[in-house]
């Protein structure tokens, strides 16, 4: 079974700061990490291989430094790593990103594709379903458990707002996973050594036989026209006094919102 995991390198959000003078993101010295949700995707790929056999491949689209994220995936036990990297991919929205990743996944071969439910920097949750649409395969999003894979049929639990669905799908399939699905492992020394030396395959848009007009900024239907900092929240009020005073004060302030 060919198991593909899509991962994204993102800034570690705890360190995203705004420069108050320029109102821009401070990116200098910000650590890059694997998108936290993709860690569960990697872990689930490893577990699927342990349960059902097969080969695991991590694919990432991003700048050259995203190779570091792939190396980390290798150190966790992933077998192969592919970096989809080209200046021509810059400016991709979710349509163009899922198109490009789908092309790479097609080239690598696949039976099951696993993505994190969303990336922590963009928060769109659109690339996973986008990939499955481009590949014309079924999708199951927000998976919290893979129950079984028997005779080319996979049975999973999909987290919904009020509970979960038990869903059956034919393979090949794309699933996106939530945190609840597993507890990611730590890298082993052996795999860390292997990852250090591993050669990471790099594919450009030419390797994927894509047309420059269909990728990156050119292939993206959406366009950002304005970026701004949200209006600052009104400064909060610290309630002081005895507990009784504070409580009465707060209840009075909220009365309209709660009883209205």
């Amino acid at each position, binding site marked *: 079974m060919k198991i593909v995991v899509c991962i994204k390198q993102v800034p570690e*959000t*705890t360190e995203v700061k*705004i420069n108050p003078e*320029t*109102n*821009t*993101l401070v*990116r200098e010295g910000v650590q890059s990490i694997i998108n*936290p949700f993709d860690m569960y995707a990697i872990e689930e790929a490893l577990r699927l291989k342990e349960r059902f056999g097969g080969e695991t491949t991590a694919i990432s689209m991003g*700048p050259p430094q995203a190779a570091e994220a792939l190396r980390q995936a290798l150190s966790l036990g992933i077998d192969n790593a592919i970096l989809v990297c080209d*200046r021509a991919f*810059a*400016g991709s*929205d*979710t*349509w163009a990103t899922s198109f490009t990743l789908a092309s790479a996944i097609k080239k690598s071969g696949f039976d099951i594709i696993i993505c994190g439910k969303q990336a922590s*920097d963009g*928060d*769109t*949750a*659109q690339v996973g*379903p*986008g990939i*499955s*649409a481009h590949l014309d395969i079924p*999708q*199951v*999003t927000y998976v919290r458990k893979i129950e079984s894979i028997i005779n080319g049929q996979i049975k999973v639990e*999909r987290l*919904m*707002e*009020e*509970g*979960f*669905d*038990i*869903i*059956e*799908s*034919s393979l090949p399939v794309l699933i996106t996973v939530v*945190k609840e699905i597993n507890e990611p492992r730590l890298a082993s020394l052996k795999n860390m050594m292997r990852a250090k030396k591993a050669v990471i395959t790099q594919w450009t848009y030419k390797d994927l036989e894509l*047309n420059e*007009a269909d990728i*990156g900024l*050119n292939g*993206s*239907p*959406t366009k*950002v*026209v304005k970026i701004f*900092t*949200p209006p600052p*929240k009104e400064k*909060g009020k610290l*309630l002081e006094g005895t*507990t009784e005073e504070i409580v009465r004060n*707060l209840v009075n302030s*909220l009365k309209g*919102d*709660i009883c209205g």
Partner: protein
Amino acid sequence: MISVILDKCVGCSLCIKVCPFGAIKLVDSPRACVDAFGRGEAVGKKAVIDLDKCNLCGACLESCKFGAIRLDKKESIIKKIKLEDYKGVWVFAEQKKGKVQSVAFELLAKAKDLAKDLNTEVSAVLLGDNVENQAAELFQRGADNVYLVEDAKLASFCDEAYTKIIVKLIEKYKPEIFLSGATTIGRSLMARIAVIVNAGLTADCTGLDVDKEKRLLLQTRPAFGGNIMATIICPNHRPQMATVRHKVMKEAGIDKNRKGKIIREKLNDDALFSRTNVLQFVEEISSTVNIAEADIIVSGGRGMKAKENFILLEELARVLGGAVGASRSAVDSGWLGYSHQVGQTGKTVCPKIYFACGISGQIQHLVGMQSSKIIIAINSDPYAPIFNVATYGIVGDLFEIIPKLTEEFKKARQ
């Protein structure tokens, strides 16, 4: 690719201020260095874009008053569509167990405004089994038409069949705008549809407006955990698709006399065929606990100290008709299930009132709740970061304060 036209750049640094990626710097005119005639005198500062940091968002283009920044775009080979063929604002009427969800009514309110500006109609798209009875309320809340597709196979949401059917509807009736709630269903469905109909899709919008002249939907959404807002358009593709956060917009009111037209679509078995099947739905969360839906959320963190203490929050939530939430550390300690978790790896919530009790306010928690309308923070540490986003802050012992709050609210509600 993006470039600065040096002859036009006056070094005013306007672009530097708007670049969210810090990719632009002013340097002594590079022209001075490369001049073939060896005229090396500095002719002032010019903007230079670091392409490794730039993600081609185009914010600098808008800001430059001198037309000195150029962003070249190649025309896609994907077939061009006639924009004027696309008319009307559509709303996906998400239903569960045969009942249209409230997020659809919020979308209808917005859709009415947009349709008025564009001088067009509002339509709802309703898929399900025996759901025709839901159409009346959709009309009362602002829909002019309801596209109705009924089949036993559509009773509960199924990615593939729903996608195929809505794609067929879009191709046949050509809406110019199509909105859905940013729910589990909406986010899965819209992303799949957008790829197939070759449309742009913006996730999780908190603001929608329209450029009347160009008939463009201006879609505003938070990025980088709400630290930055981006306005996004989709100039050359239709429909313009967006998912909208629950609870951000107000529900449309009911006009009992309002009627509309049901457009019933018959579809063949092929459209209903799906490679995925929902075998069973297992309800897990009691209605008081669905934090995504709640108007009031009472959340607890590490400061709650033990699982038993959450009863304090449950009582307060019950009095207020709200739900109980938790920070990641409370969930990781096993005090509450994952479905209660608010924050980056849990749910993003936007209630009217959010109580943060014993939650320090790590950025991962803040991104999941900071768009709540009123935030009340109760914490013993006056320096806890939660106070930076709080509307009302209380420094003190939550075990003393919360029971008294519950009492007072009980009295106030009587």
